């Protein structure tokens, strides 16, 4: 591949049709989150409902337990709402 153009790119270095030149996974969309889901693994029964319901696929099964991917979790709270044993708490992100 040729050397990458200077960032942020000018219009001459961008593909037409406004298609993104980077992968969508490069865009960390979790940074606008106001509330952070925190899992209490003592309460979690590993039913995986949070994994099913997460609209951003930000709940990951690591082989032993669920892990939240905070790079993409937007803090919508659906996981906490659906959790039948109330193992997920939505905690405000620090504001400073």
């Amino acid at each position: 591949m040729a050397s990458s153009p200077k960032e942020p790119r000018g219009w001459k270095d961008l593909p037409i049709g406004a298609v993104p030149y980077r992968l969508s996974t490069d865009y960390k969309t979790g940074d606008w989150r106001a509330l952070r889901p925190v899992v209490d693994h003592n309460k979690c029964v590993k039913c995986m409902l949070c994994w099913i319901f997460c609209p951003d696929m930000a709940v990951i099964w690591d082989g032993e337990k669920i892990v939240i991917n905070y790079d993409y979790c937007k803090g919508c709270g659906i996981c906490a709402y659906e959790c039948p044993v109330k193992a997920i708490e939505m905690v405000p992100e620090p504001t400073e």
Partner: protein
Amino acid sequence: MAQAVKTPRIPLDKQILMTVNGDEAVAYAVKQSLVDVVAAYPITPQTIIVEKFSEFVANGEVHTEFVPVESEHSAMSACVGAAAAGARAFTATAANGLALMWEILYIAASLRLPIVLAVANRALSAPINIHCDHSDAYGMRDSGWIQLFVENVQEAYDTTIQAFKIAEDERVLLPVAVNLDGFFLSHTLENIHMLPDEAVHEFLGGYRKIPKVKVDYFDEEVPLAINPARPLSFGPLDLYDYYFEHKMHQVEAMKRVPEVVREVNEKWYELTGRKYGDGMLVPYEVEDADVIVTVLGSTAGTVRHVVKKLRREGKKVGMVRIRMFRPFPHKELAEILKNAKVVGVMDRGISFGSYGPSFLEVNTALYDYKEKPLLVNYIYGLGGRDAEPSLVEKMFEELLKDAEKGVVENKLRFLGVRE
């Protein structure tokens, strides 16, 4: 690239003589253009286009996927989806239907999808009116589409085929709207010459070719089309950091349209023996004219008739038909108009609180010239009001008087309205 090899002419007796109206002419052109997807919703005076085309689909005469959608918003959306997947897509509409497409028109243009849209020009509501004016087309002026206006049924056929060629050219990749005057052309029978199917296929180079783009995550250039094997995102969020840059792509693409329109016009001439000026402007008797009138669409026929009559009476009058409204050929038009004494700009539509949209363009075209004609805007024909020869002649007589006086008192005039 300019074609060095001349296209062999198909003589008139080898072309197919048909009696069709403007809508049917468009339908036949689309049939011959190997269109993959047609998505449309009926609205007068466009309905015959898709009605006729749906017959071709029902008879198995085309391979096209016909999508009878629930609204024009959906029609253009379906075309956007189809074109993003690499299809050659077509739709047709008019007036309020075009207005309902508005949001998606911008998306088609900015995603650089070479969709072709036939607009059977009709007045916008209210009051509801099904007849011709250009208020619908003027409304999509800033959407990023190429806008071509045809004068007769033959040109509607020719231009629809040309539109695919222009839209899909790699230098352009923009959607094209082919405007034909509602009823005056859409519902009026004319004898026209059509090409054999194979000639159209060859002219267009077969099915649509997909342009390629370079993105960081694929080593090779990839087709600019939806494909699960090589995923690309179309139209994702783009804020103050990149939106402005992406708009520049549309600015630059529009700059390249004139050369492509010229080439396509020439190539069509080689193939068929028919051409329309330089593809953008069609002048008539302008060389020594004191008074020149600019006009769009079918009214040009009437104006030409009147110019012919007045020339016989020794009056120095001429006409320029504006075939391409977007991008607007400012420089080319100014070169034709600059030596006239007075120019009358006919607009079949008005921007309320301002002038007619083409009047603004003609002003812009001439502003930089030291010596330039006086300009008058004539708003005419709203809601399908006829612009008969006597009315056009009255306009020329007024303009000739203005030329004699050397001053224009009323710049905005309404032609054929009752007081």
